[in-house]
């Protein structure tokens, strides 16, 4: 089924004795295996009202009238909320965009107009789930349908309806990125390849648990408590507070277990605002469960992007000199996290290659489709797919081996840290080595090809190499809108010794399966020289822990850097305090004479002088008379990790946008049935380098999961619309995700190139699965001999490509 090859730096004896680097079994597992996890729909409150959202059946329409009186008259209904009320009670959500996107007005419920099928218009709250659903059918909405804009390529044509009148048109954002000397590059080229249009399709990661919340309002204090599975509470609070005209501290976010996020649980703030308003209006807790169809219709589609009029300057030997392209991005009906997608790709502008001369003309438009927001690999995946397609198309047109073209152009290990044309710094990595490992895992495809041909089938081999840039510098948002006041990044952790010496850790993150409780404990245990079993990491996230900062959450491949570095910092603070305390208790012993061991601290030369953690905790908390006045020890340490970033140069669009660059190289082997276009993935290798791995098994799990999602997207998963703006894949019946029988054999390989920029040598990881899409596209191209221009290749498309064969 799977085998693993690992290439890691030599470990010293000391390093081998650490928790970090071991596949420690997860602390999270027991409760999850016993069905004792607490997911948001498990949270119940006496008297809670269940909310159902009435959603638009039209992609684009004026709302002429809304009548909720019949719904309100339903005996089990507690109340309703309409867009009109929302517009009176709240201000439109803050817009990241500069003009024209800045003028979009986005509220918790549709105000005046609906702009996509599934947009929430009215909220109905009732005693039971079923009653809320029943009563929603009694809400009467009069629509005046308008033509829908469903193709981003025509969103700016004359005569096309305007989706946001306040923005004056469907253009949301436009920017031109240019670095190097394009003219020189194209003059120097032996050939200029033109690629008319490349298309990256719309899909997302469909976490098994959809969004949800249980919201309580405390009338006396004006405090809302949101039990929810939003994975970026820092962002949600920043969006919700100003809209609701309340301070951010009035919004307490509590999460425990989250059933997958993958970026798709970042933009639930509109529904959360609706729930908050209802909790206050109706004076009872409000329970919201998003059903699968609701999620597919309305939540967090990944960016659909075209790359048009691409020109690539190359030498005859395959050396890449430069490219220019026009990127067109479809944001859907509202800008919820967009247009950040318009800059985030620039973290990986040249991909893994030594291009120096690059021009990207980036346009983002609105359409009458679900709003786009981050999906695993957010915006980098689209761009890296583009660079990989270019590589394979160059190889195809020049009749060169795609392996050789990659190796000729890959950034080399000895060039690391490598500064890209736009000032991003790739920290470490050996891409050529990874490619060799991946190819070795696949082995000789010759026999397989011969066997397939004997059965009338075709074999295709494809490479997908990609980067997972992690730990964002939010200063890149200024490249979208120079007036934004965001920059840098941060994450918080607290570590304390309780009265009985328990080590208690709180994080600012919102894990959705990445094992934060476990890996945090590993880092703490290494520093305090105790067992991971002695470290208690609180599950989930709670604003009341005061363990979070502006950017807290779990997204964008950063926990291993931001979260764990915060944990490291807090634990080192705690360690230093333990040394100070022990030194004082022992009568003035200096720190260098002390050491941690066996769950306590002792004098090196006199191990019998031993203070267990229990004693330390008890002394500070309950028995502290007589301690020196200036001791400065609390044993309750809070640390804010701040990665070293500068504000990027907005004029030149230059600067380091992400701290770390994990890398992925995948190879796919497919067998195609030329009569039908049906294909199977018959062999697959995924090689990953995310720097130092704190828990190798958890890292491998992320690689596997990301790969599976990529393969699903490559072959089956798509959010496709008809021309009226109806989503044709609104549930798991039509939107096919991989099941057990769909999985190919998998081989994995790991390289550890530590990051020189992070406290632990770790790099954020988990979003690199896009490599699977690139690899499958390349394999389809190899098998069919036809140029693949779309990221989505279901059997029908492959069959069409086969018809194009010369």
């Amino acid at each position, binding site marked *: *089924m*799977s085998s693993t090859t690992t290439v890691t730096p030599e470990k010293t004896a000391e390093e081998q004795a650490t928790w970090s680097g071991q*596949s420690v*079994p*997860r602390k*999270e*597992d*027991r*409760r*999850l*295996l*016993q*069905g*004792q*996890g607490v*997911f948001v*729909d*498990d949270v*119940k409150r006496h008297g809670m009202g269940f909310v159902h959202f009435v959603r638009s059946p039209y992609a684009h329409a004026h709302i002429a009238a809304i009548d909720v009186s019949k719904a309100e008259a339903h005996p089990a209904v507690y109340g309703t909320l309409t867009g009109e009320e929302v517009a009176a009670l709240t201000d439109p959500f803050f817009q990241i965009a500069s003009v024209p996107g800045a003028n979009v007005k986005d509220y918790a419920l549709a105000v005046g107009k609906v702009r996509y099928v599934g947009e929430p218009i009215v909220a109905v709250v009732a005693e039971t*789930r*079923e009653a809320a659903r029943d009563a929603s059918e009694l809400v009467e909405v009069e629509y005046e349908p308008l033509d829908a804009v469903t193709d981003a390529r025509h969103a700016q044509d004359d005569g096309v309806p305007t989706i946001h009148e306040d923005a004056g048109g469907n253009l949301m954002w436009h920017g031109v990125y240019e670095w190097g000397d394009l003219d020189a590059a194209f003059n120097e080229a032996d050939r200029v390849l033109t690629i008319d249009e490349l298309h990256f399709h719309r899909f997302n*990661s*469909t*976490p*098994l*648990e*959809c969004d949800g919340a249980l919201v309580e309002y405390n009338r006396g204090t004006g405090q809302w408590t949101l039990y929810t599975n939003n994975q970026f509470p820092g962002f949600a609070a920043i969006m919700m507070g100003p809209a609701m005209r309340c301070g951010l501290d009035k919004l307490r976010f509590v999460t425990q*277990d*989250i*059933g*997958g996020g*993958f970026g798709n649980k970042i933009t639930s703030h509109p529904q959360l605002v609706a729930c908050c308003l209802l909790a206050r209006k109706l004076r009872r807790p409000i329970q919201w*469960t998003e*059903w*699968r*169809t609701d999620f597919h219709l309305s939540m967090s589609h990944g960016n659909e992007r075209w790359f048009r009029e691409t020109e690539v300057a190359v030498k005859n030997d395959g050396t890449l000199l430069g490219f220019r392209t026009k990127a067109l991005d479809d944001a859907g009906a509202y800008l919820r996290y967009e247009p950040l997608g318009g800059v985030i790709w620039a973290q990986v502008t040249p991909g893994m290659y030594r291009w120096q001369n690059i021009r990207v003309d980036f346009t983002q438009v609105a359409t009458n489709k679900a709003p786009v927001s981050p999906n695993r690999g957010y915006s980098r995946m689209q761009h890296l797919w583009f660079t990989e397609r270019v590589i394979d198309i160059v190889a195809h047109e020049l009749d060169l081996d795609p392996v050789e073209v990659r190796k000729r152009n890959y950034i080399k290990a000895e060039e690391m840290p490598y500064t890209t044309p736009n000032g991003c710094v790739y920290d470490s990595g050996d891409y050529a080595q990874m490619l060799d490992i991946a190819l070795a895992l696949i082995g000789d495809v010759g026999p397989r090809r011969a066997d397939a041909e004997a059965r009338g089938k075709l074999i295709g081999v494809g490479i997908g190499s990609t980067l997972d840039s992690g730990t964002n510098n939010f200063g890149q948002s200024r490249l979208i809108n120079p007036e934004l006041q965001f920059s840098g990044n941060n994450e918080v952790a607290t570590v304390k010794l309780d009265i009985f010496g328990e080590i208690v850790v709180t994080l600012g993150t919102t894990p*959705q*399966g*990445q*094992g934060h409780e476990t890996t945090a404990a590993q880092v703490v245990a290494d520093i305090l020289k105790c067992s991971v079993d002695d470290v208690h990491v609180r599950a989930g996230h709670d604003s009341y822990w005061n363990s979070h900062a502006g950017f807290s959450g779990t997204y964008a491949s950063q926990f291993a850097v931001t979260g764990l570095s915060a944990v490291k910092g807090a634990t080192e603070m705690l360690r230093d305090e333990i040394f100070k305390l022990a030194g004082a208790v022992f009568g003035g012993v200096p720190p260098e004479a002390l050491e941690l061991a066996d769950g306590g601290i002792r004098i090196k030369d006199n191990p019998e002088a031993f203070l267990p953690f229990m004693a330390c905790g008890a002394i500070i908390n309950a028995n502290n008379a007589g301690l020196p006045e200036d001791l400065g020890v609390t044993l309750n340490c809070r640390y804010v990790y701040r990665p070293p970033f500068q504000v990027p140069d907005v004029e030149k669009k230059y600067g380091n946008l992400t701290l770390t660059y994990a890398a992925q190289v995948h190879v796919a082997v497919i067998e195609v049935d030329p009569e039908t276009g049906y294909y199977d993935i018959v062999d697959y290798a995924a090689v990953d380098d995310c720097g130092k791995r704190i828990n190798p*098994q*958890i890292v*491998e*799990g*992320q690689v*596997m*999961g990301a*790969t*599976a*999602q990529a393969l699903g997207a490559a072959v089956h998963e798509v959010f496709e619309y008809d021309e009226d703006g109806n989503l044709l894949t609104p*549930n*798991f*019946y039509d939107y096919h*995700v*991989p*099941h*057990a*029988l769909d*999985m190919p054999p*998998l081989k994995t390989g790991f390289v550890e190139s530590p990051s020189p920029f992070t406290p632990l040598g770790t790099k954020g990881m988990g979003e690199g699965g896009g490599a699977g899409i690139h690899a499958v596209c390349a394999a389809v191209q190899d098998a069919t001999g036809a140029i693949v221009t779309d990221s989505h290749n279901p059997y029908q498309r492959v069959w069409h490509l086969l018809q194009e064969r010369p």
Partner: protein
Amino acid sequence: MNISVTINGTTCERDVEPRKLLIHFVRDDLDLTGSHIGCDTGNCGACSMIVNGQLVKSCMMLAVQADEAAIETVEGLSDDDELTKLQQAFKDNHALQCGYCTPGMLMSATALLRANPHPTEDEIRKGLQGNICRCTGYWNIFEAVKAAAE
């Protein structure tokens, strides 16, 4: 309608509307929230339970259809706090990440191993085909079931 169900060995009587799905009855009325809901078309299997010895998706049955039935859910897999061999195998093989599909996956694996104590990998895949996981890619789940079968 009054129904009586025996769930994980305990008999409960409740009055339910015929339209209530079995999964909602178990989660909302019986407060057993280990079984989950991941879709609305019966495709994901997160709600999988064993009813009268048969593995079913409880979102595709009405609670009233389970009158007089014996139901097993994830909460009933282990008698005490100890993990069963199957649960331990899931833990050892990192066969869960977010844990949302896990209860349903465990019930499907349980049903499989009862019918077929030593399944091949193909039989394992077939037995788990009705359970979607978005986190793991399934490979570690196959290993876990193999380990539990040994």
